[in-house]
């Protein structure tokens, strides 16, 4: 299978995501100005500071030509994972509900945190065990997840809160300790923590690999039974 990692001007964790994904499959970079996804099986919108994070995080990147293609890909059920800035971009693009506000501390925070897998049945977490804890770093200034109350209720009741910060690990003030959410159809997920920086015990943890493996397994299954999309 092949992952495509979008590169915007100002993307920083694009190569990291590519390296991480290439541990479980092929991975190529997708240029922001290109409307073609070159036949990839899954898309990753990586972390960084697309367009300098100017105006509002993710606000400008969402209009890059490649995002039209990503939206089409998502509409057809293709798996899209947004990490950190990528999560912010997906929210701005309305491919995911909610928004990411500045951390309550107003500071950038880089820290290894513990996550709880709330839903292990998504295409992005199927290699995890429900309730399992993952050690994955965060690094961001605007990671406080917000959604209006009715939206939150829906997210919770539909199992769309996929990852939560474990008690004591919510460093940004996210509502309901939300670290990662998924769309209704189950094929677009965003999370603030960086699984691509947790793929090797040597650099801290290998727990993040589980997300990449999940996507790989999902794509393999989808390939075996065409027509199957989402979770």
């Amino acid at each position, binding site marked *: 299978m092949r992952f495509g990692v979008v590169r915007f*001007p*100002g*993307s*920083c*964790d694009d*190569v*990291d995501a590519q*390296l*991480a994904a290439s541990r479980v499959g092929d991975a190529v970079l997708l240029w922001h100005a290109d409307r073609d996804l070159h036949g990839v099986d899954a898309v990753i919108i990586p*972390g*960084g*500071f697309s*367009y*300098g*994070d*100017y*105006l509002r995080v993710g606000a400008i990147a969402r209009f890059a030509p490649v995002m039209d293609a990503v939206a089409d890909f998502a509409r057809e059920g293709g798996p899209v994972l947004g990490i950190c800035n990528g999560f912010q971009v997906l929210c701005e693009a309305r491919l995911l509900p909610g928004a990411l506000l*500045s*951390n309550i*501390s*107003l*500071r*950038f*925070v*880089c*820290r290894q945190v513990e996550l709880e897998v709330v839903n292990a049945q998504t295409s992005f977490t199927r290699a995890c065990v429900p309730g399992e804890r993952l050690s994955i*770093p965060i*690094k961001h*200034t*605007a990671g406080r997840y917000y959604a209006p109350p009715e939206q939150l209720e829906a997210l919770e009741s539909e199992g769309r809160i996929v990852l939560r910060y474990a008690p004591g690990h919510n460093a940004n003030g996210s509502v309901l300790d939300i670290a990662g959410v998924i769309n209704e159809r189950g094929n677009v997920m965003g999370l603030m923590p*960086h699984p*691509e*920086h947790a793929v090797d015990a*040597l*650099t*801290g943890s290998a727990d993040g690999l589980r997300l990449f493996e999940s996507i790989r397994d999902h794509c393999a299954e989808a390939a075996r039974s065409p027509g199957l999309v989402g979770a």
Partner: protein
Amino acid sequence: MEAAGAPGLAEARSLGLTEYEYGLILEKLGREPNAVELAMFSLLWSEHCAYKHSRALLRTLPTEGERLLMGPGENAGAVDAGGGFAVAFKVESHNHPSAVEPFQGAATGVGGILRDVFAVGARPIAVLDSLRFGDPTAGSGEAGSGEAGSGDTASGDAGPAGGGGAGARSRYLLDRAVAGIGHYGNSIGVPTVGGEVYFEDPYEHNCLVNAMCVGLVARERLIGSAAAGPGNVVILFGASTGRDGIGGASVLASAELGEGDEGKRPSVQIGDPFEEKKLLECSLELLEQGLLVALQDLGAAGLTSSAAEMASKGGVGIDIDVARVPLREADMEPFEIMISESQERMLCVAEPERVGEVLAVCARWETGAAPIGEITDSGLLRVRRAGELVGEVPVAALVDECPLYVLEPVRPERPPYPAPRRTLPGPVEGAADHRADDPGTALLALLSAPNLASRRALFEQYDCMVQSRTVRRPEEADAAVLRLPARPDHPRPGLAVSIDGNGRRVACDPYRGTVEAVLECAANLACVGAEPLGLTNCLNFGNPEKPHIAWQLTESVRGLGDACRALGVPVVGGNVSLYNEGAAGPIYPTPVVGMVGELPDVARAAGLGFAADGDAIALVGSWDPDLAGSELERLRGIELPNGLPGFDLEAVRAAQAAVREAVRAGTVRSAHDIAEGGLAVALAECCLAGARGATVALGELTGGGSGESGAGVWRALFGEGAGGFVVSGEAEALRALGDRVPVALIGDVGGDALVIEAGGLTVREPLAGLRDAHAALRSLFS
């Protein structure tokens, strides 16, 4: 050229040139300089650009080495990192801009050093920062200013407010400088993997912000900045040019900041890391495609300095037409365009038939680019505006013929600094009676002292992991460890980096203090199993025209050279920042030393934390600590001693080699060098990093001095000096190290407290208490 409307001597002086220097310019030109020419001379002949007071000293530093690829003189030095890679690195100061506007000053400091590294073709893979501020706990306990302006810079509302006392100002500077460094490094995707910060009163009116960058490049891709090939095209790319920092080099960096500095403030330079990210990727792509003859960043003195340096190195001339420079503000004068310090710009030279391709790569990265001139064989820097000649100066006169000044060093009778502020009760005189004091209290006071407390609250504001190379993060080991691509012979090779320099100890003894800084840096590398490849340094000093400062500088450089020779490490480059003085006098002399080392297997890099219960703990090295100039004496408000005790360089080198090899062989499970706060603090740090207690008996180490006053005990616990390490591992393995260097087994890992028996005194502190004390800086950032 006509000297019509020549500005004359008075103007020259107001730009910082002396009458003598102005006379020299007349001589070299054979006429009076016009405004454009005078502006260019005033900047290139400033201390910052010309190294007028330091060049002769710098020539004494050892710059040769087997692994050296690029020595001082290029934008960054480079050494062979093995496996076909070169590692380029340099440290640079941004002190004065940071004192004026700490967020932007620190941010643009990082931006500047990054450009120096990618100017030689290397991808920046790590940033380190070295900071000095006044005491953040000084004055009232009242909250400081600037709280509102933390982290989020896109909307950072920092009031650079005064008020709240000296401590509040220092907290504000610290807060904003750290935020600025993080803002730039994080946004551009280069990890900030290490650094250091000290808080001392002499920095209160003149903070120091030094940043170091390390870059990686395939050996054959290293590129120099020598312009070549008359007829080749000079292209300016990156951000457009505005009035940023005009006069910066002369006014800001070469004069003392004094009472009247408000009025002298040139427009502050604003950093745009997004622009730099594009510039970085664009530059590396240009090099990868082999489109460039030479590449140079724009830093202090902007286009003038960059063009002149490139021409000088290549022995050619350059013609520039300022009308072709993309401007951010209309109606800029030619002299303004030539000296603007707008950030995020680079200059390159390309063959005419390659220009189209160069511009295409720039366009792809949405980076502005314009051919602004060409290489000539005239040996002149000629400035035109839409064809009309507006300035013409021999390159050699600008770059190489600035007068150099001879220092007139005079040793002061004693270090010319007031005693530190006393914050810990205890004997004032070093030799007084210690028996009444409690070493446990002293240990906690030391752990929570601003100079020793955990830096977590700072470094958590830095992305330390982007680029996926960071194997040892801050506070995990004495040096940051970055892995390199696997090689056939080594599956996990790596680099280790560290930056060090304790100005207070240099103030006590400029020679030995500087030697110690180099040794400490090398010790940090040894603890992760790394061998130094090269060294960079930034010499932060006061006004060198003052005899005692000249002496500090001379002695410090002598120490730097001797230490480098003793370790066999070449100086690959650096930076000098002089005139660091405030209303209350000069800063502590502060040579900051950055080192890069190599290690064969990053998986073996030892952490500093105790790793397993039951492990034995050993003290390695011929360690002979002394309280003179120690952090304990500082807390007690004891005057700086006039000189530091000597040490045996050869013995220190042997101890480092032994530790390095033990780490590489895997015979020790943790390693930590003993530095500020002495052995007791080092042990506490090992406990905290490993989240394990330890029981230690110092026995004989309290030495002959353990007599009546108890001084020997205190010296053993809290004395400082070079060459000591705390390691842990299996007792047998540790004992075996004793074949090569002095080793004393002093205790065992385990429990949830640190217990130290020393000459009849017992320190017993639960881990939780140590942890709370160590977290003292947290409150500065809440």
